[in-house]
């Protein structure tokens, strides 16, 4: 896996929208950094787009962090969503770990679960 690179920027077209681009691979060693980046990005705006299109690998810690970030966003009245640009590495990993599901969890009041729409 390539080294993890995290880039956060304000979307010039939408005020309050942050885009966090995750490139390279996410391993347990990077989990702390990813958590900080997610927290910071959520802090900065009301909407967070996590771009995983250039992500080359992700382990369970990474999947957990994404799920927790979504729950935090919901609790804070914010919106978090993922774009993966058809990244099969991410999709296969999420499906293999059993994260894909039909409907969101109990906290998903806005029907924005990042795992919904797939088979478990």
């Amino acid at each position, binding site marked *: 896996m390539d080294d993890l690179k995290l880039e956060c920027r304000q979307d010039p077209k939408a005020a309050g929208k942050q885009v966090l681009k995750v490139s390279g691979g996410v391993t*347990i060693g990077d*989990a*702390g950094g*990813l*958590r900080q980046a*997610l*927290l910071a990005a*959520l802090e900065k705006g009301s909407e967070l787009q996590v771009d995983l299109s250039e992500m080359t690998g992700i*382990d*369970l*810690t990474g*999947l*957990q*962090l994404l*799920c*927790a*970030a979504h*729950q*935090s966003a919901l*609790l804070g009245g914010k919106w978090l969503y993922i774009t993966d640009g058809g990244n099969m590495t991410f999709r296969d990993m999420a499906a*293999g*770990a*059993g*994260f894909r*599901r*039909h*409907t*969101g*969890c*109990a906290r*998903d009041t806005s029907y924005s679960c990042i*795992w919904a729409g797939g088979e*478990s």
Partner: protein
Amino acid sequence: MIDQHRQAFKEEAYELLAELETSLLELEERPDDIDLIGRVFRAMHTIKGSGSMFGFDDIAAFTHEVETIFDMVRNGKLQVTARLVNLTLAARDQIRAMLDAADEVGEGADLEESGKIISGLRELAGFLPTAAAAPAVATAAKKPENLVTYRIRFVPSRDIFITGTNPLTLLQELKELGTCSVVAQTGAFPCLEEMDPEACYVFWDLILTTNQGENAIRDVFIFVEDDCELKIEQVAEHSQFDEPQDYKKLGMILLERGDITAEEMDEVLAQQRKFGELALSKGILDEGKLQSALVEQRHVKEVRQEKQATEAASSIRVPAERLDLLVNLVGEMVTVQARLSQTAAQRADAELLAIAEEVERLTAELRDSALNIRMLPIGSTFSKFKRLVRDLSVELGKQIDMTTEGAETELDKTVIEKLNDPLVHLIRNSIDHGIELPEARVEAGKPANGTVHLAAVHSGDSVVITIEDDGAGLDKEAIRSKAIEKGIIAATAELSEKELFGLIFAPGFSTAKKISSVSGRGVGMDVVKRAIEALRGSIDISSVRGKGTTIAVKIPLTLAIIESLRVQIGADSFMLPLALVDECVELTREDVARSHGRNLARVRAQMIPYIPLREHFRIQGDPPEIQQIVITQVNGVRVGFVVDQVIGEHQTVIKSLGRAYRDVDGISGATILGDGSVALILDVPQLLQSVEEKQP
């Protein structure tokens, strides 16, 4: 019961080995064909798995070695080469020998041979015997159980990542045991602010359908069992054929899992909405648990549907003896039905006649169904010949391709079995003496590779099998000289091409200058002819010098029951196979007188030779004023048989004659008529031959 399963395994294994041989021979031609590599691997895998299940541990262990090699091929780590194919074919033969030897007292299969093959394969794969091979064989010998669905809850400890364990690897191992559905439970996740990024918060509900047993599941978690919560429950066993399609209701699954109480379930059931929705809205269930239960419901339903679909499409394996018994019983019934019809006709009772007709119709259907069950495609026999051609080509230094056509053509299994040896002999002849060495072929302007083409096609109630080679063809002059030398024909004899080629069927006839170990063109061809005629078939040769030879073998579809023509001579009845009968004409005393003892009748300007059967079988009494000639056609030659009277068509159940009558010329069997009397079945080709031989 155990013996029965062992027998079933052996039958399945023999079929798989036949399939394996075909796949390997095809693989030799197309070494990069992924499908073929997969087929070889799967055949080995099935033999290994089933072998160990039914106690054929030696076969399982041996097959495991070959399977390992083909797994490497499958994964692109090893190339298919001629040596690999040779070794695998040898392994296939060895497995067959082990199967043959199993259950037999005395000598088993040659262990030295097994060792040689395994060493060869290992050498090819680039590794030498290792200690790891032993546990692998032991694993192969472990006995799997029935297909069972398990519900597994795996809750790893919070610090599992720190110990270096990746739970996803465990999930992957579990998936390899069977059909697995995985649901990650994320409900216990804290929000991001509170999350320790290096801790594990997720746990899993897994639904696994496997035949490996609970211990195999526990083995997956063996290194983390002290560090996790593991619950394995059996939720469905799929050994019942008639299990209901619907699996448990959702509420029942949740209740069993302990995720809700009976009171909560009753409370929810009192409402009219969907159970899942209600349970969620009541807050007594979180979405993750509902999701997991729904997955279990769907998983079991899908496994059952798949199993039922497989069972519906599959066939039943029945021992051949039971089918033979069924056909024999149907034969008896056909005889009784004939008796019923005859009695009904004699009594002129309308009601009895109607019943007899009904029984006749049903018996005919039953007969056709019973005979159809024994029909098998000739393809498996063709595949065996492919191996024969390959081995002989190597032995004789020739390059020969075999092509086939009509492998799906069906024949009665007894006919197929009896046809094997004559066909082997004919193919051996084509390869040994028909097809030239590559240099000679190139010199003759032909491609270096010769071809043997094997084809089967239905023709009425018969099948015609042709063996066609593009070799040197028969040498008419050599045949003629040899026949004269042997005293089979006179030096002045004028023979048609057909008659000349027919000479190679004479006993002891051979044009081969040197008799090789494989065959001699003509050596044993009389045996081939006799074997074909014993099947009530005929054989025909055509050949063009330098271009090749075609041998056509015509065989009836079944040997059990035939349509025949019943004829009468005095008080005796005889049967002539209807397939050989062309027409019936009258023969008056004037016609006999006109032929001046030459036994020739003029039928529409054609002179037809005939055999007076009354005379031939020395039946006492005088023939009627007007007799009948039943004109038959064998190998394109029309010959008549003179009888007193033609009775009509008859369903003839063939009964073989006792040992004492086995060598009687011109009779191939007997049948029992409706009145209980016996009628002899005429062996037309043999009758013609014996008459020809008696002629000066």
